[in-house]
């Protein structure tokens, strides 16, 4: 079935549209919105955004694939994004990735079979003073170590954290 935005979506998208002088400028915010709604940015989502904004699919596709925050394939309920850039790495980000691989049985770029977790290595999250850091969905978890990562996964599994 073709994807669509419902009435409440349209209202919210119109609010976004009001911030800009043209449709094209809405490409990024609409893609964010669509990702929130549909979970990831599939080709169908790209087409829907293009159609909604009356823009070429080519344009929306190039934008969607340029930016790393648009997930081009489905991600788990919790998207664990481990910063492995310099400041986090100097303080053991690699150990966190290793720990997560062990705990979840997946490699970076993969999603657990139950669809709960996706593990991704990301570039600097601007949290270097509280390194190492993992961003879970929208939420930053800072000053981590292997023990805290274990606790974090456990809390997430139990659904104790709103991220």
């Amino acid at each position, binding site marked *: 079935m073709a994807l669509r935005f419902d009435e409440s979506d349209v209202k919210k998208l119109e609010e976004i549209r009001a911030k800009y002088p043209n449709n094209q400028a809405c490409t990024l915010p609409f893609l964010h919105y669509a990702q929130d709604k549909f979970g990831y940015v599939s080709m169908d989502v790209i087409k829907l955004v293009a159609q909604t904004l009356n823009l070429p*699919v080519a344009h929306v*596709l*190039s934008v969607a694939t*340029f930016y790393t925050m648009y997930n081009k394939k489905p991600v788990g309920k919790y998207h664990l994004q481990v910063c492995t850039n310099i400041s986090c790495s100097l303080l053991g980000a690699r150990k966190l990735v290793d720990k997560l691989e062990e705990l979840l049985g997946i490699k970076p770029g993969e999603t657990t079979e139950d669809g709960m977790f996706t593990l991704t290595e990301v570039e600097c999250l601007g949290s270097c003073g509280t390194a190492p850091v993992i961003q879970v969905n929208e939420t930053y978890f800072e000053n981590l170590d292997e023990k805290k990562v274990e606790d974090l996964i456990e809390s997430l599994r139990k659904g104790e954290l709103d991220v």
Partner: protein
Amino acid sequence: MISIKINDREYQVEEGKTILEAAKEIGIEIPHYCYHPALSIAGNCRMCLVEVKGMPKPMTACSTRVSDGMEIYTDSELVKEARKGVLEFILLDHPVDCPICDKSGECKLQDYYFEHSAQKSRYEFPKERHKVEKISKKIYLNPNRCVLCTRCVRFLREITKTNELTTVERGSHSHIVCVDPEGLDNNPFASNISDICPVGALGLNEFRFKKRVWFTKKVKAICQGCAAGCNIYVDVSNRKQLLDGDDDEIVRIHTAENGKLGQYFICDEGRYSYKLYNDKENRVKAPVLDGEEVDFEKAVEVLKEKANVRKGVVILSPLHSIEENYAAYLFARERGFDVFRPSSFRKDLPEPALFIEEKKSPNDRMLKLMKLPKVSEIEEIDYDFALFLHNVGKVHSKSEVRILSVLKRATFSVVFEPMLTDFGKNANMVLPAPIFVEENGCYINGKNFVQHSNKALDYMYGAKPIWEFLGMDFKSEEEVFIQFAKEQLDKDLNYQKLGTEGFEL
């Protein structure tokens, strides 16, 4: 005009031009991939970096405008080193599969590599590979050969505004993809992306593995498809090949730019029209008299006799060159025959129409300029002699009917055409006309531009210019043209004066 120095020599150039354009006009070629005169400036390939005195860094010639007193170096050590660097970078991920690449021989990557680099690659890592695929019925994309100049993307975004291609991802993973194969199928200009691709990334399916370009001769001509008068290159085989014996045929048609005309692209209909001219089966292969082939001398003799009448008519053709038409016109004038012109065949414009004209003939304007009456004005008279010049293509259907009836009712009718049509079938005599690439010819397009089309092939199948059949004394096509220009345009023109870009009337 302002004064600039290039490589220590002073030149006067037009203000507002970029360094690349100004240098080009002076005759200094600055290598480039992404620059294209009809597209927006991308500045991404960095091949055109030049040194500008006073600037801390080399500048892109494609985007930097000249200013008074500017001192530019296009051949300094810095520039040479920069070009070498860019070429090495571009070639990192390139497959270097020239032996099986159809662009080979006319590839800017090959040419520049030999001219500006010629060094061994120092890259020792596996290359990133993408699928080579047919992205439409007409075009294939080999992303591995792509240099990401984005000419194709810009062409489809800015010129046809159809956006079938785009770049995706970023960094060294960037590549071109097609998001709309059907759109490309229906885009009447899609195949231009093969021409403007400076390397072998985009090509035409039907040219794939067909011919090495160095076995072709590239001749500049004028497209015969409509009144736009687009400049084209006609590539013809230049040697017999062992595998296919096809010689003397058009291998392909592609764009020849004409900046004066503002024409940098051609339509697909024109591009693929070459097949019409390769139709050997229907080609008139000798003069035919009452269904029987006769030799040239016999044809001339019969014509001379049959034309020796009072009531004759000559119907010219918007599908023929000035030279063929004017020779026939002079023949009629000498004898006091009537002269008429058919109306051009028209076709609705596609979307977008860009460089296509409704009138499907290359020389309609010439006959109009001569103020010749239309065939619809022919009174219902039975002529003793009727001559009609026809060519590949069509005239207006009403004209067709009219002409056919004139031919049928004439005592002796002659049709001069390269492919046998109903006209020839209904005439007493058919004369083998040359196709446009078999001789020099000039055409006046819809915008009043007289342009010259070059001879690419010898006359084939006994084809000859009309003046030879009519026993007229012209030594060359140019002689006819000079007389036409003098008598009809009141101008002292010849082929040299027309130049490669033509002349606006």
